[in-house]
């Protein structure tokens, strides 16, 4: 099996798995208990929190563990229903974990404006300035798009938000592990992350919340995570997450280099064989290793099945959207024609892929697409 769908999820890094196994076997205490077992678990979690904070240059008390990136997004958005300013500005190509949540909280008085994107999938900061209202209480714009890998001009957007004194959130789920990420550089109020996107376990994520930024909890109970997110902690998951974060930070340059090498090999090989193939997203401002590519005249669902038969795994559109041949709304918003849209696949490389794998993929694509 050749796996090229790392934007959907990644395999757990063996070092991460070892750590998690060891924690699961040896430490079961409830971190809220005051006895030795409990204290041990608590200290393991706090240690994990420190590692994560350090890697993005935040303080440990700015890290809130959640069950997923989706939950991190939800907590920031739902928090707003308790606030006076209930208008949200977002972009038209956010993940459903933003857009569907906004629809769901409309009955609580939330209104929102979706900013359009250009043909590369970027939000224009000038457009943001124009839609800010008196009651805008949050700007939430993704750092990296999951389907095309385009990186938004996040600091320009944050500058505008800061000037107007509006809290800024970014869904950074697709960014960590593929681009340097420090909260000293990116001065967002909230950032959402998901562990399984960078070789950590599924079922765990975290929210970075700037110390002074407000958050009204949505999961209430035993007061864990400094009252921000109740529920007995997923100790091994949290440790797996922190180890995955640590490895990502430690190997970032190496990983980026590797992904860039695979990506450029893939693109140049394909372009060499055909001039009909189109690459979507921003040619420069994108994370390495994520390639959205269209094969004019070839339906992506058929292509996906043909590759699947050969044990080659890629995706079309976002993972949640596959299983239907509905055109991707992200590509639609980027102004891509329906015929190009439905002939688009996403290839996302990872640390396990080799140049040889890329050749197998390219050959299979050429075989099935007749481009």
């Amino acid at each position, binding site marked *: 099996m050749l796996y090229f769908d790392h934007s959907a999820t990644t395999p757990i890094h063996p070092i991460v798995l070892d750590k998690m196994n060891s924690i699961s076997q040896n430490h079961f205490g409830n971190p809220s208990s005051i006895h030795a077992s409990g204290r041990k678990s608590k200290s393991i979690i706090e240690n994990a929190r420190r590692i994560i904070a350090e890697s993005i240059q935040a303080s440990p008390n700015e890290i809130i563990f959640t069950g997923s990136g989706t939950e991190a997004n939800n907590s920031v958005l739902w928090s707003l229903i308790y606030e006076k300013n209930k208008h949200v500005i977002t972009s038209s190509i956010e993940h459903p974990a933003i857009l569907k949540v906004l629809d769901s909280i409309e009955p609580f008085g939330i209104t929102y404006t979706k900013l359009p994107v250009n043909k590369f999938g970027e939000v224009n900061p000038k457009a943001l300035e124009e839609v800010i209202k008196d009651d805008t209480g949050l700007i939430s714009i993704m750092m990296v798009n999951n389907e095309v890998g385009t990186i938004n001009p996040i600091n320009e957007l944050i500058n505008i938000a800061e000037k107007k004194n509006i809290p800024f959130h970014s869904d950074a789920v697709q960014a960590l592990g593929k681009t340097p990420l420090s909260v000293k550089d990116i001065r967002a109020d909230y950032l959402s992350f998901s562990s399984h996107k960078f070789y950590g376990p599924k079922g765990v994520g975290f929210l970075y919340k700037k110390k002074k930024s407000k958050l009204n909890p949505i999961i209430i109970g035993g007061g864990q995570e400094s009252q921000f997110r109740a529920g007995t902690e997923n100790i091994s998951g949290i440790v797996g997450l922190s180890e995955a974060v640590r490895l990502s930070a430690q190997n970032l340059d190496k990983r980026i280099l590797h992904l860039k090498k695979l990506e450029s090999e893939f693109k140049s090989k394909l372009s060499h064989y055909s001039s009909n193939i189109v690459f979507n997203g921003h040619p420069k401002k994108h994370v390495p290793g994520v390639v959205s590519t269209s094969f004019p005249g070839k339906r992506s669902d058929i292509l996906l*099945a043909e590759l699947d*038969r050969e044990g080659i795994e890629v995706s079309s559109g976002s993972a949640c959207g596959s299983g*239907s*041949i509905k055109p991707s709304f992200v590509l639609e918003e980027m102004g891509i024609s329906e015929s190009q849209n439905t002939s688009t696949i996403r290839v996302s490389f990872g640390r396990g892929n080799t140049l040889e794998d890329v050749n197998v993929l390219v050959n299979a694509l050429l075989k099935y697409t007749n481009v």
Partner: protein
Amino acid sequence: MSDTVIVGMSGGVDSSVTAKILKDLGYNVECVFMKNWEGDDKNCNSEEDYKDALSVCDHLDLPLRSVNFSNEYWDNVFKHFIDEYARGRTPNPDVLCNREVKFKAFLDYAFDLGAVKIATGHYAQINESEDEFHLLKGLDKNKDQSYFLYLLGQNELSKSLFPIGDIDKVKVRKIAENSGLINYAKKDSTGVCFIGEQQFFKEFLKKYIPVKPGLIQTIDGKICGEHDGLMYYTMGQRKGLGIGGGHGFKEAPWFVADKDLDNNILIVAQGHDHPSLFHHGLEADQIHWINEAPTNSLENISAKIRYRQDDQSCRITELSKNNCKVIFNEPQFAITPGQSVVFYIDNKCMGGAIIDKRF
């Protein structure tokens, strides 16, 4: 590599056993789950069905792909379904779904995927003789589904397999159980697939067709109640009329005998044997023949005017390219415009037409 057969997998026991049988026969089997209905209608079990399909395919080690035909279903089946109800008729969406979705959109998709045949879990049989394909009833007389398949033609039959058509349902369930399929005891689906059980029907139609209440009259012109809209009723319907005692002479139940569409009046008759509920003949249109159209009147023909009805002896008295008149040997209860009349000679399904009028 062996021939690829693609199975339309619903998550039910019939299509699951279909896949199992083909796999055992040595075909290269792949399964496709069709999602034909969008929206979060709580009565549509599509997601649960998908999970069943996935566990069955996982158990049989077969790939499962999904495809969304909701646009095709909406444009070519559902719109017609609504139009027919708005005209006071009782359509049969399953007949159309087979022609437009399962044996058109799905068939094309499967062939694009490299299939040499498609297969479904229908209780019917295909017989090839003298370069012609014939549609035969399923072996299990109780489950025979040829009624729903009469709109298929030579092209569709030549590309399809019905591997459980010569097995009875009890045995199909047995095969499923012995093969360890989780859905071996799953309830057969009933009702219209996108609505679910009968009790949701009114609520559903209301969303698409404006409600036009009116009066209920007896066959003799006596007003005996009010109806919520003619579309909610079908010929021969007994339940849900809301007519109590006091209108008739005896306590026998009331039945829908007719619809006066011009005056929006529902006409009812008392007692199952009331003569106004029975007709000797019908006129039908949109006629379709599975094999070549007959040139003269067919000998020994019989027909079903509803699914699971016993074959009724009849004569086709007038026949043109698109229309026919049918006279039955015995009067028929509740001949219903919009439903299909399907013709048989013995075990063989000849074709059928849509009932327009009765006389």
